[in-house]
């Protein structure tokens, strides 16, 4: 009777080895999933985008990266790596004061666009990371960057979302998956390979 109502009372620790074995198998298959997604990266496009970014950086431009949530930390990561290679770079989510001020006073959709208005220069590069491809603040940020003459680059997931509909977007990488953890891991590879093409500052 009670087993029916409380199945976990009867299945507890005796299941431990089974659950651990399931978790191990799941871990290995998750690794295979991300390897498969990485094989889908368009390496010619990475090569072309990396070369275009380098051209901007060589002429005095800076890399400006942004995104939401885990993609915001990816944007911060690519900025750290870019700085380590000797190039100027900044991440818009590093400034929580401005993000929350704009979010509170104007609206969250404008947190990146508002920062780009005073910060961005025409020779800069905007790199947006969005798993859905449809975050309004990321789209607004890219639009502002495009208006100001920046090179516009985006890394996204799913089917590209609304980012895939922007005719003026210079470079777009779509990791075709709807599972955020794995596609995010593939995103890290995309921006690491981009920086590999950019190379170190002479």
């Amino acid at each position, binding site marked *: 009777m009670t087993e029916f109502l409380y199945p976990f009372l009867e299945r507890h*620790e005796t299941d431990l080895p089974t659950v651990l074995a399931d978790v*191990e198998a799941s*871990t*290995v298959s998750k690794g295979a999933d991300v390897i498969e997604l990485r094989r889908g990266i368009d390496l010619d496009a990475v*090569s072309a985008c990396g070369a275009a970014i380098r051209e901007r950086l060589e002429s005095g431009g800076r890399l400006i990266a942004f995104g939401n949530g885990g993609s915001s930390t990816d944007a911060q990561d690519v900025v750290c*790596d870019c700085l380590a290679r000797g190039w100027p770079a900044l991440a818009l989510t590093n400034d929580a004061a401005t993000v929350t001020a704009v979010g509170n006073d104007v609206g969250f959709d404008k947190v990146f666009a508002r920062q780009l208005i005073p910060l961005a220069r025409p020779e800069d590069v905007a790199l947006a990371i969005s798993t859905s491809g449809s975050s309004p603040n990321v789209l607004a940020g890219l639009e502002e960057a495009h208006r100001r003459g920046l090179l516009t680059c985006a890394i996204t997931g799913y089917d590209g979302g609304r980012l895939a509909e922007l005719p003026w977007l210079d470079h777009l990488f779509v990791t075709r998956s709807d599972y955020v953890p794995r596609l995010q*891991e593939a995103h890290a590879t995309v921006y*690491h390979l981009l920086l*590999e093409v950019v190379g170190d500052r002479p």
Partner: protein
Amino acid sequence: MPDASHLARRLAERELVLSSFLEREKSGLALCCHALARAFARGGTLIPLGTGAAATDAAHVAVEFMHPVIVGKRALPALAPANDPTAASTLARLAAPGDIALGIVHGRDDPAVRAFLDGARRRGLLTIALWGPGDPPAADFSFAVACGDQQTVQEVQETVYHVLWELVHVFFEHPGLLDDSRSGAGQAGTSAPGRLRQASGAACITCGDVAVEARVVARLDDGFAVIEKDGAREHVAVDLLEENVAVGDVLLCHAGVALEKLP
């Protein structure tokens, strides 16, 4: 400038590093997920720390647990220290025994993260080290990626912390596995006081931590045994052992689990 064929080689290297790492560490990762789930079940908070580029991973870990991307998963408490670069103040003023310290290093070493994990260990936190190709500090679980390319290490570690987050929730679907009084974990989160003091120096095969040898004094139902060491007694899970366990046997134990029956 690197062309597509160069990039393809770099991808192939990544595949090798990731798949060999997961194959080698899968059992340690599974046990780590279990320990993490038990620590959360007891009310622990996850404190991830990295410096430089690894600080962005620490923030990523925090948001992963705090705001699950999969609708319906419960939010779990996590905070990445900001404006406290070594997390020394966070550890001293905010952390409590039973919390979880996760240190992230992309390269061979990071004195700040090493000190953080050492301090966390002394305070009785569950400690997890995600390390690059160097020797990680003593921790309950350590996962070193033997690769000199820090970007590749970062990518493997991103998979690791995503997997930890994803699979912690598997254990929440098995509430019976979260109960310390039954699962014999001692207090995984209050490692030092809750467990037998280590004496043998034998290494735990799953996490590089020190395991203890102890004698079985009673056999319980449901895959558990009572062990005794230097007068202290504790419950351990013996499910992982394929052999029968009887009173008088000597077991190598770690974190509430018997890993091996010693001859």
